[in-house]
C-alpha cells in the first residue's frame, strides 16, 4: 500500500511539475477551453532551422528532431489537467478509509489547493476554466446529464411535489432571507460594506443558496438513508440549480436597474414560470425526438449513443439560446429519453451510453472541484470578517429555518412524513458547491464588491464542504436517521412485501382513492397506447425473460462448475435436486448462493409490479449495480469453455442437466431461434446464445412501472417437457459438438448443444453486452416483428394468459412463436 501511495503521489507530482515547467517556460497565460472553439488558430511555426522556402547559400540540414509546442498546447494542457484530476481520484482510493470519512469533493479541493499553491508560487495563472462560457457550456451539462439520466424516476415522481416545493420555495426562502439579513447587516457601519445595496445582496444570496449535494448523496448512499430523504435531497439540488440560475439572472438584471417597481416583480414571477416550464417543454420535445430517432437506428448501431448526447446537449444549448432554464431542459430530456431509448437501442449502445454519461459527469465534477481548489489560491481576495461570518451564519440559519417551516407545511401532504431526524438530514445536507462557484465568477464586473463576494462564496463553499461534508456521516449515523433496508436478505421478505404492496394497491382501488398513482396510471395508459407505438421500434421485444432464464441458469451452472471442480455430471442442479426431492423423503435442500440470487432475480423481475413500487437506488458515483451477475458470467467464460468440452457430456445424466443448463426445463433453444435467424446474423452475433441482456432489463427496471405481464408464453415449456424426443435428440447430437451454433444442425434439439460450444468462441473483451445485444438482436429478428412484450398495466387478465397454456402445440419445437402484441 505504501508503494501504491508513493506511486500515486509520484505521478501526481510528476504531472504537476510537468505542468508548471510548461507554464513557466512560456510565460503565457494559458487559456484552455476544453474544445478549441474560441477561434485560436494554430499557425504552423516556421522553424528557423528547418528547410527554407528559398534556397539559400548555406545549406541547412534536415532537422531530425523538432518540437512545436504551441501547436498542441491547448489540447495538451487540457489533457494534462484532466489527467491530473483523475490521478487525484485514483490516489484517493488507494487508502479506502479516506473516502469513507472524507468525501471525495473535499479531497479534490484539497489537491486543488495544493496545486494552486504550487502554481501561485511559480506565478502562473490557472486556466480560465471557470469563465461563464466554459463552465456553463462545457462543464455543467455533463454533470446535469448524469444526474438526470440516473435519477431514480419512480421515487422521484412519487415525491415530485415535495421536491419542487423544496427546490422552488426553499430556494426563494433562502435567497430572500439571506439577502435581507445581509442587507440589514450592511447597514451597520462597523463592517464597512454600506455600499452594497439590496439588489446586490439578493444577488449574492441567490448565488449562495444553490445547494450541491454531491458529497451528501454519497454519504446518504453509504449509510442507506431512507429513500424519501435521498430523493428529496437529490431532486432538490437538481431543480434548485435551475431556480438559482433563474433567480440569478433575474436579480442580475434587476441589480443593474436603478429602481425596482412592482411591475418588475410581477414580470419576474412570470419570467420564472416561462423559464421553468419552457425548460421542461424543450426537454420533453427533444426527448421525444431523440426517442423517435433511435427507432430507426437499428442499422447504425455504432453511433447510437451519439444521438443521446447530441440531443441532450442540443436541448441544453437551445434552452440557453432562449435564456430559459437549460438545466431543466437537459434533465427532462434525459428523463424522457431514457425510457424509450433504452428500449430501442442495442444492449451495447445502452451500456456505452451509461458508461459515457457517468464518465463525463464524473470528470466534469472532478475538474470543477479541482479548479475550485486551484482558483481559491490564485484569485484576488477581499476579506471582510463581518460580512463573511454573517454570511455563514445566515446561510445556516435560514436553511435550517427553511427546512423546518417548509416541512411543516408539506408534511400533511406526504404519505410518509418527514420526522425531525429527516429534517435535520435535509438541512444539514445543504452543502454548497460548483454552481455557486461558477455563478459568482460570472458576476458582472460593475458590481463594486465583486471580490468580496467571490471570497465569501469560496469561504462558504469550503466551509460547508469540509465541515459539513466530513461531519455529516457520523452525525447521520449517530442520530440514526431512518434507513432503507436495501438488503432483502430473505426470499420471505421479498415475497411478503410484494404481497403487501399488492394489497395496498387493491385496497386503495377499493376505496376509490386516487393518489398520485391515478395520474401515473393515466400517463401509463397514454404512454402505452400512443407513445410507445410511435417511439419504439416494433420488432424489438422486451428483454426476453427466456434470456433471463438462460442467464440465470447458466450462472447457476457456472456456480456449480466452480463448486464441483468442473464436473458437471456430478453436480446437483436445481432440477435434479427437485426431482430427487420429490421422489425421496425430503432431504433438506441446500441452496447455493447462486440459487438465492436467482430467486431474488426471478422474484424481482417477474412478480407483477404494483403501481407503487419503491425501488432502485442508483448511486451518484457508480453505475446501477446489476453487473454482479454479468461479471460472474464473464469471468467464468474461460472456465466454462474449458470444462464444457465435448467429452464431458457422455453420461445419461447429461440430458437433464444439460437441458437445464441450456434452457429452462426442456425448452428448446430453437423455438426462440429458428434456423432462419442465422441468415441475419453474422459470426459475432451467434455467440449470443450465452447472452446476458441482464443489464438492459435491470437498468430499465427502475423506470418501469407497468406490470410485466409478459406475453411470452413460456408455459410452452411444459409442453416441451412431454416431448421425449428432445432427450434422445440431445444425446445423438452430443457427438456433433464440433459445430458452433451456426452450423446446420439447427434442428431443434441441437440448439442446446450448439449453445454450449458458443461460449468457446466468445470473444474475451466486452463479450457480455455485445452478446446480450446480439442475443436480443438475433432473438428479435428471429421471432419476427410481432414479438413485443406489452407493458400494460391493463394487460389481459389471467384468462388470456391461461389460454395459450392450454393450447399446447403439436410440435412446439418447430412452431414459431406467434406473439401478437397488439392483441388485447
Amino acid at each position, binding site marked *: 500500500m505504501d508503494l501504491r501511495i508513493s506511486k500515486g503521489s509520484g505521478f501526481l507530482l510528476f504531472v504537476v511539475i510537468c505542468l508548471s515547467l510548461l507554464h513557466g517556460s512560456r510565460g503565457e497565460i494559458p487559456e484552455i477551453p476544453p474544445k478549441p472553439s474560441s477561434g485560436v488558430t494554430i499557425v504552423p511555426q516556421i522553424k528557423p532551422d528547418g528547410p527554407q522556402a528559398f534556397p539559400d547559400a548555406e545549406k541547412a540540414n534536415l532537422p531530425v528532431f523538432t518540437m512545436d509546442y504551441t501547436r498542441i498546447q491547448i489540447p495538451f494542457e487540457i489533457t494534462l489537467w484532466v489527467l491530473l484530476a483523475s490521478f487525484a481520484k485514483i490516489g484517493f482510493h488507494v487508502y479506502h478509509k479516506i473516502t469513507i470519512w472524507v468525501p471525495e469533493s473535499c479531497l479534490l479541493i484539497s489537491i486543488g489547493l495544493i496545486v494552486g499553491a504550487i502554481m501561485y508560487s511559480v506565478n502562473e495563472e490557472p486556466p480560465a476554466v471557470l469563465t461563464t462560457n466554459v463552465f456553463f457550456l462545457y462543464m455543467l451539462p455533463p454533470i446535469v446529464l448524469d444526474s438526470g439520466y440516473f435519477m431514480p424516476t419512480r421515487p422521484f415522481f412519487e415525491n415530485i411535489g415535495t421536491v419542487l416545493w423544496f427546490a422552488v420555495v426553499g430556494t426563494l426562502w433562502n435567497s430572500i432571507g439571506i439577502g435581507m439579513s445581509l442587507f440589514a447587516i450592511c447597514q451597520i457601519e462597523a463592517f464597512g460594506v454600506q455600499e452594497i445595496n439590496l439588489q446586490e445582496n439578493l444577488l449574492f444570496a441567490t448565488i449562495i443558496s444553490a445547494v450541491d449535494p454531491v458529497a451528501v448523496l454519497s454519504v446518504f448512499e453509504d449509510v442507506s438513508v431512507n429513500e424519501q430523504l435521498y430523493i428529496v435531497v437529490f431532486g432538490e439540488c437538481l431543480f434548485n440549480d435551475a431556480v438559482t440560475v433563474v433567480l440569478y439572472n433575474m436579480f442580475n438584471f434587476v441589480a443593474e436597474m436603478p429602481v425596482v417597481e412592482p411591475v418588475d416583480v410581477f414580470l419576474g414571477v412570470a419570467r420564472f414560470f416561462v423559464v421553468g416550464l419552457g425548460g421542461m417543454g424543450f426537454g420533453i420535445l427533444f426527448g421525444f425526438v431523440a426517442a423517435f430517432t433511435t427507432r430507426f437506428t437499428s442499422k447504425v448501431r455504432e453511433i447510437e449513443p451519439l444521438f443521446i448526447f447530441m440531443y441532450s446537449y442540443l436541448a441544453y444549448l437551445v434552452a440557453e439560446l432562449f435564456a430559459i432554464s437549460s438545466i431543466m431542459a437537459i434533465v427532462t430530456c434525459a428523463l424522457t429519453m431514457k425510457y424509450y431509448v433504452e428500449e430501442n437501442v442495442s444492449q451495447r449502445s445502452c451500456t456505452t451510453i451509461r458508461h459515457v454519461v457517468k464518465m463525463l459527469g464524473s470528470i466534469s465534477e472532478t475538474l470543477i472541484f479541482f479548479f475550485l481548489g486551484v482558483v481559491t489560491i490564485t484569485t484576488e481576495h477581499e476579506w471582510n470578517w463581518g460580512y463573511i461570518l454573517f454570511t455563514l451564519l445566515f446561510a445556516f440559519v435560514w436553511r435550517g429555518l427553511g427546512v423546518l417551516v417548509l416541512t411543516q407545511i408539506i408534511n400533511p401532504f406526504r*404519505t*410518509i412524513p418527514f420526522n425531525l431526524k429527516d429534517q435535520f438530514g435535509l438541512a444539514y445536507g445543504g452543502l454548497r458547491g460548483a454552481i455557486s462557484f461558477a455563478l459568482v465568477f460570472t458576476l458582472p464586473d460593475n458590481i463594486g464588491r465583486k471580490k468580496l463576494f467571490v471570497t465569501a462564496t469560496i469561504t462558504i463553499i469550503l466551509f460547508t464542504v469540509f465541515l459539513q461534508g466530513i461531519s455529516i456521516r457520523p452525525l447521520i449515523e449517530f442520530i440514526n436517521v431512518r434507513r432503507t*433496508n436495501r438488503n432483502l436478505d*430473505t*426470499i*420471505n*421478505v421479498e*415475497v*411478503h*412485501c*410484494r*404481497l*403487501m*404492496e*399488492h*394489497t*395496498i*394497491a*387493491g*385496497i*386503495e*382501488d*377499493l*376505496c*376509490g*382513492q386516487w*393518489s398520485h398513482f391515478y395520474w401515473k396510471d393515466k400517463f401509463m395508459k397514454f404512454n402505452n397506447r400512443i407513445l410507445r407505438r410511435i417511439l419504439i421500434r416494433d420488432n424489438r421485444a422486451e428483454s426476453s*425473460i427466456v434470456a*433471463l*432464464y438462460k442467464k440465470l441458469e447458466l450462472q447457476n451452472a457456472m456456480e456449480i462448475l466452480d463448486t464441483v471442480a468442473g464436473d458437471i455430471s456430478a453436480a446437483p442442479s*436445481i*432440477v435434479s435436486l*427437485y426431482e430427487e426431492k420429490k421422489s425421496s423423503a425430503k432431504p*433438506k*435442500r441446500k*441452496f447455493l448462493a447462486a*440459487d*438465492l440470487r*436467482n*430467486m431474488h432475480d*426471478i*422474484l424481482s*423481475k*417477474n*412478480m*407483477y409490479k404494483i403501481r407503487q413500487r419503491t425501488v432502485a437506488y442508483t448511486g451518484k458515483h457508480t453505475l446501477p449495480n446489476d453487473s454482479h451477475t454479468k461479471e460472474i458470467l464473464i469471468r467464468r467464460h474461460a472456465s466454462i469453455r474449458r470444462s464444457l468440452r465435448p467429452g464431458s457430456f457422455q453420461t445419461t445424466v447429461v440430458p437433464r442437466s444439460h437441458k437445464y443448463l441450456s434452457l*429452462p*426445463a426442456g425448452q428448446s433453444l430453437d423455438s426462440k431461434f429458428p434456423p432462419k435467424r442465422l441468415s441475419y446474423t453474422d459470426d459475432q452475433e451467434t455467440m449470443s446464445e450465452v447472452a446476458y441482456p441482464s443489464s438492459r432489463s435491470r437498468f430499465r427496471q427502475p423506470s418501469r412501472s407497468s*406490470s*410485466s*405481464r*409478459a406475453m*411470452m408464453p*413460456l408455459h410452452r*415449456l*411444459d409442453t416441451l417437457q412431454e416431448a421425449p424426443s428432445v432427450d434422445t435428440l440431445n444425446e445423438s447430437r452430443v457427438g456433433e459438438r464440433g459445430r458452433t451454433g451456426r452450423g446446420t444442425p439447427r434442428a431443434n434439439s441441437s440448439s442446446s448443444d450448439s449453445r454450449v460450444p458458443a461460449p468457446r468462441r466468445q470473444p474475451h473483451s466486452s463479450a457480455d453486452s455485445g452478446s446480450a445485444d446480439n442475443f436480443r438482436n438475433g432473438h428479435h429478428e428471429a421471432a419476427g416483428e410481432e414479438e413485443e412484450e406489452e407493458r400494460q*398495466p*391493463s394487460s389481459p*387478465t389471467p384468462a388470456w*394468459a391461461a389460454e395459450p397454456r392450454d393450447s399446447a402445440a403439436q410440435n412446439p419445437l418447430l412452431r414459431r412463436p406467434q406473439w401478437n402484441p397488439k392483441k388485447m
Partner: protein
Amino acid sequence: MGSNSSSMNNIPNAEQLVQETGFSAAHILRLYERFQFLDKDDTGQLRPEDFGAVRELAMNPIGDRIISAFFSPGQETLDFASFVRVLAHFRPADSNRTRDGAQPEPANSSMGKLKFAFQLYDQDRDGKISRAELLQVLRAMLGMQVTEEQLQSIAERAIQEADFDQDDAISFDEFRKSLEKVNIDHKMSIRFLS
C-alpha cells in the same frame, strides 16, 4: 360531496365505529359514500360481485384474496360496519398509543396488519401457511415467466427460511418473525382521504 343525503345520521352506529376503528367522522362519511357507490343494488350489503366490479381490483393478482378477506368464512354479505372494520387495518398506526395490556390490539397496529396479511395467504384459516398456499400466492403474483420448478424452489426456500418448528408450514409467529426488519406500518398503510 355526495348528492344523496350523506350525513352521519344515516350511517348506522357511526359513533361506535369511530370509537372502534379510530377513523375520523369525515373518513367514515367518505367510506360510507364509497360503500354506497359499490352497493349497486342498494341493499345496504355488499357481495363479492360488487367488489369484483372494481376493475383495478379485478386485475390485481391477489384481488380475489383481498375480496375474500373482507368476508368472514361463511359470510355472504358484508355490511358497512364490517367493511369499515376491515379497512381499519390500513389506517396508519397511531404512534401515541399507550401500551395498555387490557386493550385489545387495535386493527391498525403492526400486529393487526400482519394478521391481515397472514390471512391473505392462509385461506383455509388453519393458522398456518402451508406450502400449497404459499405456492398459490406465488403463482398468482409471479408472471407467466416462471417455471413450476422455479416456483417450487422459491416456495421451498421461503419455508426453509421461516420455518423453525419444522412442520413445513409457516405459522403466524414465524411469519411475524421473518418480517421483523420490515416496517410494516409503512408498507401496509394508506392515507385515507376525507
